[in-house]
């Protein structure tokens, strides 16, 4: 098989990641310190691949007879965000030194799964890619020190994953069965050709939505998420919250926002109903949380709900969606960098534990405040642009009264989220200091974590100020 150079180029991020996987696999078998070097190279390599992902020209990759993979704006955005979060997660793990070498292999494998999934144009590939994304996740969750809790988290994740996958597959089966094709475009065409079956096929459509949505915690499949986020080691939670969410959100967007959107008109309503329900659930459940990570989990559910409401807009809403996604992911990375940093000094998740952070470490404290505010959507931080852009798109492009109501509802519910973000901020800026907020060991690698958080905060501020340019940076627009 001779692959043209353009194909290799188009798959550069995936290929590069595979190479890294191989290298890391090799480290499993070397003795001495050599593995450390390779591991430290990984984040750099990932960042390079991120740049590469931006530079690769877009276009469908038709090498495999099937148009099973496409490189477009969605892919580019996904690749860049995945690389970024992958690099961050690897760095976290490198700093904390809590995990065996296999950790890195698994992270990179999962990353690879995510990379493939976001570009997949075909169900089988999508399925396998998502499984590749998930399996390392199941295992990573169980990496925690407190095995009882972390295995519980892993089992919940896995069992939920199994049932959700079954649901997804059943949906696939019904679609493929009635269309005889596994490509998205083929299915769209098939459904479009027989309009009578549209409403019947809405059921597999919904099953796929629910089955995929489980990973990002859409209602009714939200329940595992807070438990798993709390039970997993903090780096892994960061991994799930970034890599997992990016991939699945973009896959959902591609499926329901791009490929199948025109086909299933009524699906839009379904997505919006689920989205709003999810948003409301996540927001309200987070209100009185005392556990920081649980709070982030619930708030993450809320954010996902918001983003879901943008899917039916398709590419029209992609700008707003990507704004939201970028801001959310960057803020998440920053906050988990901070949480990883904190986990070095104390081993509890309660919000009170973070009391007085701004005093013990002002730069970091302020950065975290900025990150949280961005998540909450205080203008002009980047997080606000997502909500704002989303509301604008919803209002402009949905039918008139419905769109206005939806936008209003989205904004009003988002405002509620300020309450719990503020309750965290209150502790952070409190003047009474928690004695244990200082990490025990202060070295370059540890401060690296705070630099990541600060960098994320700066990014959100600058991004908020420059606005649209940030999207160009990620190849959107």
């Amino acid at each position: 098989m001779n692959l043209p150079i353009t194909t290799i180029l188009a798959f550069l991020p995936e290929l590069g990641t595979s190479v890294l996987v191989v290298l890391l696999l090799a480290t499993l078998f070397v003795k001495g310190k050599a593995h450390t070097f390779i591991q430290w190279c990984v984040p750099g390599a990932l960042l390079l691949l991120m740049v590469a992902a931006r530079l690769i020209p877009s276009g469908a990759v038709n090498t495999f007879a099937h148009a099973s993979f496409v490189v477009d704006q969605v892919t580019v955005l996904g690749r860049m965000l995945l690389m970024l979060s992958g690099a961050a997660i690897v760095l976290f793990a490198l700093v904390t030194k809590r995990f065996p070498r296999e950790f890195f292999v698994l992270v990179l494998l999962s990353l690879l799964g995510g990379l493939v999934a976001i570009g997949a144009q075909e169900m089988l590939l999508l399925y396998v890619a998502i499984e590749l994304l998930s399996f390392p996740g199941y295992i990573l969750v169980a990496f925690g020190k407190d095995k009882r809790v972390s295995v519980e988290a892993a089992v919940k994740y896995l069992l939920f994953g199994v049932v959700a996958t079954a649901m997804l597959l059943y949906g696939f089966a019904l679609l493929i069965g009635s269309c005889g094709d596994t490509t998205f475009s083929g299915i769209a065409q098939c459904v479009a050709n027989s309009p009578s079956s549209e409403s019947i096929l809405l059921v597999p459509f919904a099953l796929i939505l629910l089955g995929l949505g489980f990973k990002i915690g859409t209602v009714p499949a939200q329940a595992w998420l807070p438990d798993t986020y709390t039970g997993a080691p903090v780096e892994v939670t960061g991994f799930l919250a970034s890599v997992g969410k990016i991939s699945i959100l973009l896959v959902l967007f591609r499926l329901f926002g791009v490929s199948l959107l025109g086909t299933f008109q009524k699906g839009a309503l379904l997505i919006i109903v689920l989205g709003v329900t999810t948003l409301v659930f996540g927001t309200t459940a987070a209100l009185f949380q005392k556990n920081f990570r649980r709070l982030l989990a619930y708030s993450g559910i809320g954010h996902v709900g918001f983003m879901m409401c943008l899917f039916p807009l398709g590419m029209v809403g992609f700008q707003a969606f990507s704004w939201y996604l970028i801001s959310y992911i960057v803020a998440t990375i920053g906050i988990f960098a901070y949480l990883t940093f904190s986990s070095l000094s104390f081993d509890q998740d309660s919000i009170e534990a973070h009391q007085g952070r701004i005093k013990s470490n002002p730069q970091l404290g302020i950065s975290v405040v900025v990150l949280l505010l961005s998540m909450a959507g205080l203008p002009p931080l980047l997080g606000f642009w997502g909500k704002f852009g989303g509301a604008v798109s919803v209002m402009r492009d949905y039918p008139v009264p419905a769109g206005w109501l939806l936008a209003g509802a989205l904004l009003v519910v988002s405002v509620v989220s300020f309450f719990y973000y503020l309750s965290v901020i209150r502790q952070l800026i409190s003047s009474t200091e928690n004695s244990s907020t200082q990490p025990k060991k202060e070295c370059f690698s540890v401060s690296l974590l705070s630099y990541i958080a600060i960098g994320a905060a700066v990014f959100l501020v600058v991004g908020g100020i420059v606005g649209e340019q940030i999207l160009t940076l990620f190849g959107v627009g």
Partner: protein
Amino acid sequence: MGFLSGLLLFPVVGVVLLTLLPARFSRITALLVSLLTFIGTVVLLFSFNTTITTLQFEELYQWIPSLGIGFHVGVDHLSILLVVLSSFLSVLAIGASYGVEKNLKAYYVCFLFLLATLLGVFVAHDLFLFYVFWELSLFPLYVIIALWGGERRVYAAIKMFLYTLFGSIFLLIGIILLSVLVQPHTFDLPTIISLRDTIPLQFQLLIVVLFSIGFAVKLPLVPVHTWLPDAHVEAPTAGSMLLAGVLLKMGGYGFLRLVFGLFPQAAVVIAFPLFVIGLVNIVYGAFLALAQSDLKKLVAYSSISHMGFVVIGLASLQDIGVQGALFQMIAHGITSPALFFVVGVLYHRTHSRDIKFYGGIATVMPVFSVLFALTAFASLGLPGLIGFIGEFATLAGGFIAYGWWVVAGGAGVFLAGMYMLKMVQGVLWGKVADGCKGLKDLTRTEVLVLVPLVVLMFIGGIAPMLLFKYIQPGVALLVQLYL
């Protein structure tokens, strides 16, 4: 970069400077930065051409072209005085912060940041930019209350934040809706104004109502005012000064520019209900003030009452009423910070806000007492001091527009006398109370903070034309919409 954006940026530069310098220089740096900003705004004021009604010092840069968002700033007759007031009060508020001891750096950072956002609100001529500044001003205030406030600061701060946030979310919805309704989609205020006739009336009404909710919370109007007393009581003195002095004005300014200035046809519809709510504000706030024995609460409720005058003036849609409303905003922006400051001066000395705790302050603190009394009288609308002009003009406007309804406003004037006297007499007169023996009179810093305010009360009351000339042409233009 033009003068205005430079002015906006300057406090931010100050913030950076503050973070770099050690904490012992924080106060002086903040003071200098705010003072320079104030001087900048004064320069702005003096180079402001009062005869032309177009935007001056206008700057327009593209920001998010795809959404029609630009960085459009400028000052006109409706905003110039509020700009100056903001920077002026910031200087005084920072000056009044001598009692703050912990986390100095953060404290002053918050104030400078707040200053920048306040200036931004008043100079923004892009709806989005306006909203950004509007929202952004909340956070520093939240921090100020939550960190340096009284006992129930956390509750008050969150309440303030969420309350106003809920209000402003309606504002945001309205803003987005507005941009969606105009073709091409834009957030640029002058463009929208030129296109307003293309928007159907019922949508105009919808937007006006949405905006009104947002501004009503900020103003605040009864019944969405309950955040204010709590916030004031718990806020540190300087925070209260800015909150009462400038932040409430944002609501009035919003009504002026984005409700009455934007959709004349729709605004006419809500003018009368708004007028009635304004009257309710006046009387209700006054009654509440009367029932308080907590000094700060009393002043806070008096603020509610006074802002009612702003509303009735605006809702009158008469030249005299609208001018009076703007003037009343300025007047309240001078008297209420002064009141909060004098209360703060007392609190700093005795740590009590209870009127019954005090007595005979006139004997122990004569200079303070004179200034206190002047401030209180200015606040109750004594002619010759700044509070009167606005009250008169708004009442007159209301009368011309709606007739005898303003009697309720008159009742507010009377009640103002009652609660102010209650405060003045309760604190200053009588035998020297046990807790007040041997209190020191005003320090030099305190005099420096209070005297400019008192001087302004006189200037505004005696020579209101000095202020009116900055207001008139703009208001005339606005009122023409309603002829």
